[in-house]
């Protein structure tokens, strides 16, 4: 495993921490990365590029990066999903973030030291925590915040967004988080789609 992958398990674990249906350990990323991409069924990206479709490209999009391989794309998508959990437009600042120097205790040092701080510290916003499994189910504001973090994170990694329809977005995001990551990674690493780049 190269250094690129070493970062993401932590992030992936963090991503799953408030998604009980998909609660995972850091090893889940290894499992996802080991997935044979030919077994991942991605929805067709063929659709009429009419005005209706174009009007929602800002909202529904996929990412693609020239030359990226599936394994790297899985790690990248996983990391960005972990950042993209948004609870509220105005989430409160916590007093504690459990981040620090790794423990000298061998048993503890094996654990991820960087837990997510939790909900009640965030007031009402925290109440939404448990329900955030699929970005597709988010309300309009949270959906935009989710998109913002996706654009930023994937953008920093060199991916470009391409507009798709709501139906395609639903097909990508409607399953479990693992399925979503695999499908997004497959699309991101497949030949460049004949789509219009999504201008936010």
């Amino acid at each position, binding site marked *: 495993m190269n250094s690129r992958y070493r970062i993401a398990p932590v992030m992936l674990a963090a991503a799953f921490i408030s998604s009980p249906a998909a609660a995972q350990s850091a090893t889940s990323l290894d499992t996802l990365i080991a997935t044979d991409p030919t077994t991942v069924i991605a929805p067709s990206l063929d659709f009429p590029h009419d005005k209706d479709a174009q009007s929602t490209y800002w909202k529904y999009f996929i990412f693609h990066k020239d030359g990226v391989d599936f394994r790297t794309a899985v790690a990248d998508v996983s990391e960005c999903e972990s950042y993209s959990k948004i609870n509220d437009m105005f989430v409160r600042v916590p007093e504690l*973030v459990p*981040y620090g120097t*790794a423990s000298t205790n061998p048993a503890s040092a094996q654990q991820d030291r960087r837990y997510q701080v939790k909900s009640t510290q965030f007031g009402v916003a925290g109440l939404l925590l448990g329900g955030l499994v699929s970005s597709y189910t988010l309300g309009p504001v949270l959906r935009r915040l989710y998109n913002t973090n996706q654009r930023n994170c994937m953008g920093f990694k060199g991916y470009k967004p391409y507009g798709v329809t709501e139906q395609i977005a639903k097909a990508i995001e409607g399953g479990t988080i693992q399925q979503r990551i695999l499908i997004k990674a497959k699309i991101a690493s497949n030949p460049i789609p004949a789509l219009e780049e999504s201008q936010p």
Partner: protein
Amino acid sequence: MRILLAIITALLLSPATARAQQFREGDTVPVSPDRGYVLMRLPERSYNVLLMRYLTPEQLDKFDAARRAAFEAAKPKADADRAKIIADNAKGGTKKVPDELTLDTFVFRYDMMANVLIIKAKYPFATDTTGKSHLFGLPPGTYAIIGMSFTGGGEHMNSCACMGSVKFEVKPGRITDMGLVLTGTVGAPVEYPELANYTGKTIVHPPQPVPGAIGLRPYDPAMPRPTTLPALPIEVADYRAQGRIPNFFYSMITRMAPVKGVLDYKLDKIIDVKSGEEVP
């Protein structure tokens, strides 16, 4: 009276008050040899800046132990509640069965320590023609700039510098000069060229939320220092690149703009310029 004393004691011992203090204009700064002092400059208009102190291994172990204990205390009731729903559903009930509570999914609040410090832009220690200087006292340790916030009915996140920032050491009995921390708001004129590519360009219809921008100019001798600083040795912050941190805040994310001689990026890889190495 006893109740009042108890409240005062609780406040004095609470994590928020025990860990950091921001001094305001005209304040007398109580100098303590076991505290560090930090001087930060902010532009006239600025978000509040968030600092995080690295927890020590002992503190993390304490946090782990408390979290595990709380989980073990909560687990029996969660299991019983879940079992009851399953049993009720077997008799025709239709309640959603919660997933089994695990340590990974356990929601934990811990009030016994704090390591996030909010530098409030509206409370300068000194103001001059170049901007505002902020002074605060805090426990020594390693600190990272982790994001921006704003005040309004509480303190709210703007964004987390989750994908790259800087860290520095704060030593006891000294003032660490952080230089000028830059923040920029989306849509505002770009006053600082460092932030040009980080202020967002996504003001469109429909409007999209975009994180503010954050950058840094390490101290240089042209930056004035308040004349009212306490008589302590002053050290310039020795910045190093801070690697990724999880989105602890569930907020928008960004990264600090590159800082000459300190922080750079190759796509999303964070480069510590002083060592030339990538930091995870």
